[in-house]
Each structure stands twice: as C-alpha cells, then as structure tokens.
C-alpha cells in the first residue's frame, strides 16, 4: 500500500489544478503584458488568482506579489525590507529555527553589514517571547519568524509576537514565513498584525515554482528582481501564468471545507502517534499543526528507518527534506534540546487529506515489524 507521508515536503497537484494549468499552457498561453486579446486573457488568470488568494487572506489583491515560491518570497521580504529601511537601522531579529531560505538570507545580510539577533525557543519549539522583548532595539527594522515549524509542526503565537513588536515600535516590519501554515490554518495577516507574509504553492497541492508574498498596503519594500516592470515593478519578469492560475485555484480548493479536511488530518496524526508511541522507546516531538508528526525511534538511525519504510512504499522525511542531501543534525531538533539519541533517530511524517486510516494502520503495523529487526543491527 503506497503511503505518501511527506506532504510537508511537497504535495500532489490537485487534478483540477492540473487541468487548469494544461489549459493555460496549451490555449491561453499569451503574455499578460501583450496588448492583444491573448494578453488580456492571460492577465485575467492572474487577476482571478489574486482575487482567490486575497479572499482567503482577507486582504486586498494589490497587496499580493507572485513569486517563484516560498524561498523567493522570503528573500524578497527580508532583503527588500533591509534595503528599504537601512537608513533607519541595520538590526534584524529572527528565530533560531527558521527555514534555510530565511536563515541563509540573514547570513547574507550579516555579511552585508546588518546585525541579526536570533531568539531561542522552549522545548516545544515556541519562541521565547521574553527574549524577543529584550532583543528589540531602537535600530531594529525587521522581525522575521515562521508561523508553523516545518520539522516539528509547532504553531507560533504570531498575534502575540506582533503585539510585542508593535507595542515597542510600530515602525518595525514584521515578516511571517507562513509556508507550512497556509491552507492548514485560517488566518488573516491584517488581523494578526503582520506586514509581510510568505506563501508557497506546492505545499497546498499547487504547482512547484509558485508562491506569493503579501505586502501590506503602502509598506515600502525594495524589489530584488529588476526588469520589465511587471507586478508594479515589485517582481519583474513575465508572470508564470499557469503556475499563478494553479496556485490561485489550489488555495481556493484547499480552503473549501477546510475544517472537515483538517479534522480528518488531525485524526490521522493522532491515531498515528498513539499507534507508534505504544512501541518501546518511541517518542513524539510534534507540535500542534494538524499535518506534521515528528517521531524519534531511539536506536535506529533516521536514514535507515527512512529507507526501510521506503522499501514498504511509505515515504517520509528525515529532518527537513530541502536539505537532506547534506547530512547534518537538524538545528530545530537541537534547538528544542532533544537528547543525542533522539536527534539522530527522528523522522517527520506529514499528512494530507488524501491519506486514509488504512494507510495509517498499515504504517503503524510496518513500523512495529521493522523496529525490532532494525534495532538488532546498530553500530
């Protein structure tokens, strides 16, 4: 039985999205900047996608910029703000458990003369708000945090963080990487008090290479990609119309009956965790996000367990998939102070609404069979 439990890495594209994209690529292939009819039709797809996403985020269409994905959205938000505000200050605050597209961008800015303060987390992965308060300074221009942690699924208290920042100085820009939250949690950046918010298409059954950055109306962000002036010059380059159309539809479909979907996913996650933690020396490190389960199988290296599961058609992640070609101990797992034996034996199982109870039970049974065999052979 094939079990794809790696939905936090990427998801299968919705069939409706696939069909729409094929239509855009084959028939409505115009350049949205073209003056003729073909261009007008292409432009309509973009407007429609923006309207769909704006509806879900309860924001204005003009506050959305389409990008090539979560990584570009994060880069544009962080570098774009740093460039726009460098005269007011060069201090940035972020957490120590951010995705590489945030942490590596911070490292880049540090080399360019910015100063970055990293705040810690508790053993659940929740940001230390006291640390945040004391990190804020007169020259702080930007705070960047994630919404849902991609490795363990912690949901961060975004609204509280925003309040702390804005109480201190309302000019500080607050960016949220919502790649793992969008489509799973209902929220509005305006209500949360967020100025910039990153979204990725392929985590919500949309196409890879699609993403959005929400930029609060009138907020100053300097573009990082220059050219023909598309998207009000915030992100030049001919719009990826099929991907944008696909992303818009995926967002709409994802939020349709969202409560039912999430209830189902959450039930799967809980059933799975109950099942596997019943085995000896198996530990649950998961946060509250409905779709992410982080489990340590002490005594079995995560890679070995991953490949053994793969052999049984169960597909999961060790640490974070985006960086699994470099074996490193996950900085998230280290930050929540997992003991060494759990650091090297942790797997991430991430679910979607297409997963079934049968798949969960099959996975539990398979793990139950594999554990004693794999534990016999350790170095």
């Amino acid at each position, binding site marked *: 039985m094939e079990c794809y439990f790696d939905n936090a890495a990427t998801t299968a594209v919705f069939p409706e999205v696939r069909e729409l994209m094929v239509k855009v690529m084959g028939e409505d292939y115009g350049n949205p900047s073209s003056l003729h009819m073909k261009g007008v039709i292409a432009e309509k797809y973009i407007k429609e996608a923006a309207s769909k996403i704006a509806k879900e985020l309860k924001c204005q269409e003009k506050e959305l910029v389409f990008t090539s994905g979560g990584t570009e959205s994060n880069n544009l938000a962080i570098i774009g703000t740093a460039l726009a505000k460098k005269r007011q200050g060069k201090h940035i605050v972020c957490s120590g458990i951010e995705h590489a597209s945030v942490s590596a961008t911070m490292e880049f800015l540090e080399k360019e003369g910015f100063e970055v303060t990293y705040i810690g987390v508790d053993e659940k992965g929740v940001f230390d708000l006291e640390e945040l308060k004391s990190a804020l300074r007169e020259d702080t221009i930007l705070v960047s945090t994630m919404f849902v942690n991609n490795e363990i699924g912690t949901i961060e208290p975004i609204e509280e963080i925003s309040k702390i920042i804005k109480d201190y100085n309302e000019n500080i820009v607050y960016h949220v990487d919502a790649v793992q939250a969008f489509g799973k949690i209902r929220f509005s950046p305006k209500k949360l008090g967020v100025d910039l918010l990153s979204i990725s298409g392929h985590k919500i059954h949309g196409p890879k290479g699609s993403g959005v950055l929400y930029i609060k109306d009138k907020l100053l962000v300097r573009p990082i990609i220059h050219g023909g002036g598309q998207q009000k010059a915030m992100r030049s380059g001919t719009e990826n119309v099929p991907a944008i159309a696909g992303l818009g539809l995926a967002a709409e479909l994802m939020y349709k009956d969202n409560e039912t979907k999430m209830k189902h996913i959450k039930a799967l996650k809980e059933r799975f965790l109950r099942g596997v933690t019943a085995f000896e020396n198996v530990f649950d490190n998961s946060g509250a996000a409905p779709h992410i389960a982080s489990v340590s199988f002490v005594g079995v290296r995560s*890679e*070995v367990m*991953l*490949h*053994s599961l*793969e*052999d049984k058609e169960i597909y999961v992640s060790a640490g974070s998939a985006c960086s699994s*070609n*470099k*074996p490193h101990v996950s900085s998230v797992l280290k930050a929540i102070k997992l003991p060494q034996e759990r650091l090297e034996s942790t797997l991430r199982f991430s679910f979607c609404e297409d997963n079934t109870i049968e798949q969960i039970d099959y996975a539990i049974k398979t793990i139950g069979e594999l554990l004693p065999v794999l534990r*016999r*052979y350790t*170095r």
Partner: protein
Amino acid sequence: MQYKVFLIKYAEIGTKGKNRYVFEEAMCKRMRNRLKPHGEFEVRREYGRIYVEAFSDYDYDEVIKVLGQIFGIVGICPVVVVEDTAYENISKSLIEYIDSEYKNKNFTFKCHARRNDKTYPKSSMELNCDLGADLLEKFPELSVDVHKPEVMIDIEVRNVAYIYSKVIPGPGGLPVGTNGKGMALLSGGIDSPVAAYLIAKRGVEIEAVYFNAPPYTSERAKQKVIDLAKLVSQYSGVLKLHIVNFTDIQLCIYDNCPHDELTIIMKRLMYKMAEELAIKDECQCIITGESIGQVSSQTTQSLLVIDSAIDKIPVFRPCIGMDKQEIIDISEKIGTYETSILPYEDCCTIFVDKHPVTRPKLEQILESEKALVGKIEDLYAKAMESVELVYCR
C-alpha cells in the same frame, strides 16, 4: 583563430615494435568515437604521426578536454595550416600566428623546419634561418636560442605547410583495450575511482563492482557510484558496473562473527565475489583503491588476510603507496573528487565497530568465519544471481 588541425603526440606506443599498428589504431578509434559528438573530424595516421583535422566548426575547449582524456596521447598541438606553401605565405602566416598566440614576445625561440617535399626551393636549414630572421625583424623583443629555446616553433612543409609551437599535455599511458581487462571495486569514496583510472591508463579495459546495502545505504549512494563510474568511463570507455545487493550477507556476518572483525570478513567476501565476477567476464585482475595504513582494514596485516580470500586473480592497488593528498590531487585532476565527497554512506561504514582489529591473524579470521558455514552459502548464491548491471558511459 579556429585551428583546423591538431597534431597528436604519443610516446610509449612508438616503442611497441610490430604491435605499434595495433596501439595506434586503438587510440585513433577511441579519438574518433569521442570526437563524434563535437563536430566533423578526421583522425588519420600519416608519416608515423597522428593528425586530427576538423571539417566543421567546433568548441576548442571541448575538443582539448576530450583529447586530454584519451590514454596514449602525450601532447596535443594546435596546428596552423598554410594552404599555399610559397615562402612568403609561410612567413606571413608564421608572423600572424606568433603575434596572436604570444601576447608577450619577450622569449627565446628556435625554428625547426622540415620539408617532406624535397623539391621545395628552400632547404630545411634555409627555412630555419630565413623564417627566424623574418620573426626577429618583425618582433625585435624575440631572441634566438638554438640550444634551450623557451618556444620551439615547428614548421612542416608538405603539400601544405603546418605551423605549431604549443603542446597541451595529454594524460599519457596506453590506449584503452590494448592490455586486457580488470574488475575495479568501487565504493563511492575518493580512492577507488582513482585506482580504476590509474589502471585504465595502462591500457586496461575496466569493469566495476559496487556492493549495495539497502536500506542501510540509500538510492542516492548507488546513484553516486554510477555517476563516478560514468566519470571514469570518459577515460576508460564504456564501463560495465555490477551492483551486488550485499545487505543480507552483511547482516549474516553481523549476527555470527565478532564485531571487531566485521570489516575484514566483509571485505574477504567482497573479494571472493569480485573474483568470481572477474573470472566470469574474463578479467585478469581486481583493482582496489587501498593505501597502506589509511584505515584499519588497510594495514599490511589486514591486506594480507583479505588477499588470502582469493587465489585465482591478482589484486592491483595503484594507490598503495600514496598519501591521501596525492590521491585527492589525482581525483581533482580527473574530475571525480566533487562526486566522491558527496556525503552518502557506503556499506563499509555502516557497521564499523568502534575498535576494529588492525592486526588480524588469518587463523583467527578463518576460525571466526566457521560460524558462517551453512548460513552464508545461500545468501552468497542469491546475491550473485541478482547482480544488477549498469552500462556507464
């Protein structure tokens, strides 16, 4: 300037007496094959030399790279061809060539002219003197040194004239396929591809074997070995890679033998399998990347015990006396280093004991291996039956 002709220099083949033809032809064949995707070329042997002539546009760097991967070639000389051999033409072309090829003219040179066409109005000696004088007149910074010139300028006059002075070093060695066949053990590390390269360099055709251990090693580790085999095949020609599923054998050793002897016993079994595969495919040697003392299984004592596992075929270890850095230098030169250092575990490192034996005794190992009798035979046969073949090119 697009060179139309390359003169190929080769050294050792020239000493092979009556077999010389075989060696030259093997090398030419390989050149024709490798050049095919890069344009229209003719590779020809004439007057005891090998020339590559281009009949279409080509990318200079690509062609030099390809020729630089063909064993047997010692040097590659880009040649300027002068169609009209009238003296004035040769002189003019020579001056243009020196002008464009050497920005800084502050060097010593010597003209070395030869004429195939004995009816040519000037003798070789006269050509040397006159062309040298023309160059000196045009570029006063030049000076002549007939004993130790910094630049030797060759001029060959036949139905057309050839001018060349630069030699781009080739890999040397002997043309692949002129010296039998060997079975290389590829692990995915730095040393084994270098070992395969060094033996291929002596004209030996290469096959390889990789021991895969899923789920303890990943699909990517296997892909890495295939990629390495492809890189080696650029030098050695198509490489037949045997992929053996070794997991059950490894687990059987783990269950039955002392853990500090695992690596030694495992390698003895790998050698046995490699020997069997080698004999089946008519190889005359096994090739490994071991270097004395690099790890516990590469002490002289360990090598002795491992070697004793086989008795029909010799093991060639071209890296045996090299330091790690020397091996790394070669791997960088041949382009395998970047792939070798990708961090995927190979089956040798998975069950490594914290304190493996460094001075194993054969009697002791044979004693330990008795525990495998009756258990390992089926697993061994099963692994040999299910060998996966990948042709890397």
